[in-house]
């Protein structure tokens, strides 16, 4: 049981430290025995979308002058998917970025985007470790079988 408690604590830390919000729990509630990996599947789609968007935004930030409308549009998508999985800190950066976009603030956009990429990388690492750990220790039923 100790490992499952560790997993539970790890999961709780994501909420306590603000990496994830209530929406993640909403996704967990959609998971069941018939769809045991639903959350991880959704999160994997999020990684895929994010990688594509990060690449597009990186490229767009190289252009001069910046196309703020385009950047805002990319970030709208990013914000949408991060909000759909409950990625709270990433979401906050997206909002900040869009504000800078609307203000036409080049430095603000670039700085915020670096911050966003950092938050995204941290979250991704944490979630990957979490799902891997969960898979390794297996469902609770197995752990409580006597040796």
């Amino acid at each position, binding site marked *: 049981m100790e490992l499952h408690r560790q997993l539970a604590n790890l999961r709780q830390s994501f909420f306590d430290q603000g990496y994830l919000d209530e929406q993640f729990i909403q996704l967990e509630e959609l998971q069941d025995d018939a769809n045991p990996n639903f959350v991880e599947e959704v999160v994997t*789609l999020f990684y895929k979308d994010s990688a594509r968007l990060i690449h597009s935004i990186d490229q767009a930030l190289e252009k001069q002058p910046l196309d703020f409308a385009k950047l805002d549009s990319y970030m709208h998508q990013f914000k949408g998917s991060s909000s*759909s999985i409950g990625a709270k800190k990433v979401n906050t950066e997206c909002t900040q970025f869009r504000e800078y976009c609307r203000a036409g603030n080049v430095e603000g956009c670039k700085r915020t985007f670096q911050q966003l990429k950092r938050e995204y990388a941290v979250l991704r690492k944490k979630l990957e470790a979490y799902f891997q750990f969960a898979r390794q220790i297996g469902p609770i039923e197995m752990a409580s079988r006597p040796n």
Partner: protein
Amino acid sequence: MEKMADELHVLAVDDSHVDRKVIERLLKISSCKVTAVESGRRALQYLGLDGEKTSVGIDGLKVNLILTDYSMPGMTGYELLKKIKESSALSKIPVVIMSSEKILPRIDRCLEEGAEEFLLKPVKLSDVKRLKNFILRGEGDNEETDKRIKEGSSRKRKFQDDSLTQSVPSSLVTGHDIQSTPESSAASVSQQPLSKQPKIG
């Protein structure tokens, strides 16, 4: 042939992979049949409105509800809504718009164009359950619906009944214990569009 009770067929339209997957799951858990497409264009193709002959017989796979994102490249959810409402074949299918942005003029415009409801993303299971109950109650009852519209009640009232006391909702939904009956929709106030004067057509 009328659809079987409890087996709604929902056409979900969203350009986001993540959101399509989530909405599909929400609908399946709510015992709905789901067809998820990525664009307004694909939705129109599926519905047989694109002018081309499709292999999908509308009668065989009757759509009971269209749930579409607002912001999509190419054709927005609003434009899709318009096309559906302009079609004599499809205008009676209820259309619900989803958006991550609570922009009041946008909401008003959609409702005026005939959207049944406007949902704030991320969509929750309680939203889907509420939608489903509404559709099931209203289905096959178009006469009563038309009568209600003539009498001046807003379309939204089908959801909200008497609970139209809207304080400006916050866009963050916290963990309310949301029941799936419209009477308690005050708890899900952040997902409700604001009241407006009904447009009598």
